[in-house]
């Protein structure tokens, strides 16, 4: 790793830690100033994610507001040692998208809100591991990065990805598995 890359990654880690610390303190401070800072950083990212998920821009804006409101309301459920702010906010935004799609399908039933008791949920040993992943995604081979993006950014099912790329379903899954194990291997190194 070149010195420049190392410095860039170090800087990224610091930023990430700062956001996570700020979010972790939010349930105590209930500071609107802190919330505004989190909002300025995360809302445009959440909006970009929701648009890629296939929502029209107007709906994306609204869902972003709902997601960020959930950040404020559920801040007490965030545990600093268990996930970065980014991961936690990602899951809130994702759930907003899923709920919206479900409502659009005009459903009479309701799936239980996915919210495993944060204390009982089994997380990885160190949330620190996740900090090592950022560079790793950029280093994935094109074919693996592509299925990762289609899945996470666009919420496409394996079958949809298989159709879109014209490759067998099994290949979609094996590419995802390879990407997963590479990212995990990357977490493990540089201990």
């Amino acid at each position: 790793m070149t010195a420049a890359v190392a410095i860039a990654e170090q800087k990224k880690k610091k930023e990430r830690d700062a956001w996570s610390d700020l979010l972790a303190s939010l349930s105590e401070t209930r500071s609107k100033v802190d919330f505004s800072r989190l909002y300025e950083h995360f809302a445009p990212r959440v909006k970009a994610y929701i648009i890629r998920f296939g929502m029209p821009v107007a709906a994306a804006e609204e869902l972003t507001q709902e997601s960020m409101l959930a950040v404020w309301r559920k801040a007490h459920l965030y545990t600093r040692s268990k996930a970065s702010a980014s991961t936690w906010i990602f899951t809130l935004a994702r759930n907003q998208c899923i709920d919206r799609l479900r409502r659009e399908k005009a459903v009479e039933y309701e799936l239980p809100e996915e919210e495993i008791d944060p204390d009982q949920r089994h997380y990885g040993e160190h949330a620190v591991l996740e900090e090592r992943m950022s560079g790793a995604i950029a280093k994935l081979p094109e074919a693996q990065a592509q299925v990762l993006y289609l899945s996470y950014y666009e919420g496409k099912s394996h079958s949809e990805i298989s159709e879109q790329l014209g490759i067998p379903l099994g290949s979609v899954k094996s590419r995802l598995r390879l990407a997963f194990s590479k990212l995990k291997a990357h977490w493990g190194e540089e201990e």
Partner: protein
Amino acid sequence: MKISHHLDDATLMARAAGALSDGMTLLVDSHLHWCKTCQTKAWEAECIGGELLSDIQPQAMSEGSLDSILGMLDGSEEVVAERAVKVKGSAEVPEPLAQIVGSDLDAIEWKRLGPGVQHYDFNFPGEGACRLLRIQPGVSVPHHTHKGNELTMILRGSYSDDVGRFCQGDVADLDEEIKHQPIVDTGSECICLIATEAPLKFTGIMGRLAQPFIGL
């Protein structure tokens, strides 16, 4: 509970990405409720999502959106008491599933599907199927293939197929390349939750006869 067959990593990634059908989400969440191994991986898969979120090219919010949300903060505090009381799971029904069918498998309104087979259909809207199957000993589900993924989770009893033997808590996570014919392999009935991305296709003459009838 000793679980020996787990969810595919690719399925956990789809779960993290919000890319699963409702039925498959229910099944995955049910397995996660019982399986620490998969919980850890599910968490790792969510971290990938978090990483992608921080790397994404931001899209500016429209003007005034910060002011408008600041105006909504007061009074939006979560009222815990308002939350619906959760139905507790049981030894045979993981909590996410219990929210929908209750915690007693024998109290479900089973419908006859064919000789030795009963089912309960969740009738989730959208693509794919999700149902509970209750299969008598020795009965085999017709040979079938499927377009897309198929997940099966055992709640009671066990079954075997070309892939192996599946007991309570185990998940068979298969894709379309696998042709299989599960058979209940003990003297007691087997109840499983099954979710697919797309309708099942039965193969062979028996399959063609059984399909309109089973309608999976």
